[in-house]
């Protein structure tokens, strides 16, 4: 054996996930006009044609036919989008559903003749059952899938490195990219080719539906922590490696499919980072927005006391809580809270008559804001 069977599987998942992460990072920055899950369903049509031709569920013709189908379908959708008023997203759902149905009919007929279940096409893990191995003069050099995913990763890396500068400009400012006399169609074609070869190959590991999570999941996690596209790609590849190792180990312990555990880990990490990521997570943003709102209200309060004081009795700066609540249209409870905060920060104080007055620091702060 070239590699131990178990290690081979982990390596295949790692390579597939890494290749997917590169494409996913690009799609996230591009805003993904199409969903990889629709592409996955479209590729099932090519998959079935390839299956009709080769009669095995995992082979090179299947991948080739899938790639051709995806590229042709994308072209058709683009044409339909130009000629009709239907949006691209809706067209992807419709075309993918129709092609998927036709693909399944072909597949049903073929699987009945070959006594193969179609479940594997939906749930993946075809690569582990692959019989094709590279054997030269009796020596086993490993499974074809291992080399297939290595080549896929290599192609994605090369295409990304060659076009990385163009991607950066194109995603930030499309008009500027056009002004540089660069061909947008060519760049879109590159992305399209990357997506199609990745989806067509990865379906053999993930099945037609989870492929979308493999592509978008890890870059979505990473986007909460990094800003640059190149850093995003590198971090995504690093996370992919750890996720595939963890996925394989847990799947073996729980006796569940490796792909589904890997997908579950990606999902959990995504939800966790979306909520808990520092600075960009929902929780962090929620609390920072609350703090911002409090600060704005505090500034408004200081300004009001300053102006009210100047209007009624110069140099005395006073105002009453109820007045503030009425004038600002704030809840009385919230007004008291903000006043309390201002007192804690020593910006205001209550005099013996129960009037609010600005402290020296408070006056300084108001002047500072007004001078700005």
């Amino acid at each position, binding site marked *: 054996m070239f590699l131990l069977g178990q290690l081979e599987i982990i390596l295949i998942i790692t390579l597939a996930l890494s290749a997917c992460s590169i494409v996913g990072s690009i799609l996230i920055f591009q805003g993904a006009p199409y969903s990889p899950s629709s592409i996955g369903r479209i590729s099932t049509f090519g998959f079935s044609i390839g299956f009709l031709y080769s009669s095995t569920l995992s082979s090179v013709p299947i991948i080739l036919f899938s790639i051709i189908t995806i590229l042709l379908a994308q072209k058709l959708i683009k044409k339909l989008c130009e000629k009709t008023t239907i949006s691209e997203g809706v067209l992807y*759902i419709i075309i993918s*559903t129709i092609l998927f*149905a036709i693909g399944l009919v072909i597949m049903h007929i073929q699987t009945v003749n070959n006594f193969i279940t179609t479940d594997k096409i939906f749930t993946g893990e075809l690569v582990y059952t692959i019989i094709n191995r590279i054997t030269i003069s009796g020596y086993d050099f490993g499974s074809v899938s291992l080399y297939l995913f290595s080549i896929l990763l290599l192609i994605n890396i090369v295409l990304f490195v060659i076009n990385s500068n163009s991607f950066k400009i194109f995603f930030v400012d499309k008009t500027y990219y056009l002004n540089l006399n660069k061909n947008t169609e060519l760049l879109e074609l590159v992305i399209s080719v990357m997506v199609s070869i990745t989806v067509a190959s990865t379906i053999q590991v993930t099945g037609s539906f989870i492929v979308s*999570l493999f592509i978008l999941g890890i870059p979505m996690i990473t986007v909460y922590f990094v800003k640059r596209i190149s850093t995003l790609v590198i971090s995504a590849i690093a996370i992919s490696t750890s996720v595939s190792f963890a996925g394989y180990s847990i799947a073996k312990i729980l006796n569940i499919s490796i792909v589904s555990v890997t997908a579950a880990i990606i999902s959990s990490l995504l939800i966790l980072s979306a909520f808990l990521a520092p600075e960009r997570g929902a929780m962090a943003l929620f609390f920072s927005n609350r703090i911002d709102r409090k600060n704005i209200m505090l500034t408004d309060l200081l300004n009001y006391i300053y102006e009210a004081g100047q209007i009624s009795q110069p140099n005395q700066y006073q105002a009453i809580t109820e007045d503030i609540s009425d004038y600002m249209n704030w809840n009385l409870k919230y007004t008291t809270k903000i006043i309390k905060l201002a007192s804690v920060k020593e910006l205001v104080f209550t005099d013996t008559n129960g009037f609010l007055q600005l402290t020296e620091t408070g006056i300084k702060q108001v002047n500072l804001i007004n001078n700005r």
Partner: protein
Amino acid sequence: MINILTTADIILIIQLSVALGIATAINGVIFSLRDETRVITLVTYSSSIGNALALFFVGATAFYVNMLLAIPVVLFILAISKAIEYSKKVSKSIITTTMTTVSFAIIIVLLSYIDRNFETHQINFTMYLLGNIRLFESKEINLIFYISMIIAIVSTLNINRIKQYIFDKHYLITNNLKYNIFNLLLIIQLIITVIASSQIVGIVFAPGFIILPVIIIKYFVKSLLQLFIFSSLLSSVSLFVGIYGSLLMPLFSTGVVIILTLTFFVLLLLGYKFIINKRMIKKNILKVM
């Protein structure tokens, strides 16, 4: 289980097709015109988690159990999507796509766990994903029929509010209707419709089945009422032919036959539109000459 088709069976299929056709078309019109087709996909996949959970906990996939489990699950997934949207780091379409696949991953995890660890449950992925009418009891079909009818009646009674919801949400708010509550009610209605239709059409085909008739009929009609009526008609006919066809051809799952029937009708309609347009162009040219 329907094996031999009697007159009663055919009446049952007609009832089911009409009621479900109307319910799916109503939801299709509402969400397609609001440009929220991705919500339909997300709701379909996340509601199927209810299906898998029902099998996991109860060991059965009865319609009402699915519904009870699916509603909180879908609302939870929608809440997570909203929370991710809050950070505004990635586009809405990416979030919906990812959450859709997250839901699908959960389904696969649950089903594969049941498949490998519970000997009593026989899991057939194809059945879950592509739908199969042969697995339904008559009383369950009746239940789906009644629920679909309720949806159809409630929507017809609220047609004006639905119009406002689709075209002008501000008008809805000025009419003292709480927009968020109305939105939630419509999403719950969508969940129920999706659960009903996904059991027959299949999880995979349900979004396409809900959207496709509306998108095509939109090109032939001029009013919202016409859109409701004709898309319901197209859905119902496709459902009837699909269900009947799949019973006659047991090799193919119900969802596949329904979608292929729908595609056939769509191609027919598009062909008709193409011929009419060509004739119109010819007439106009002759007029000019």
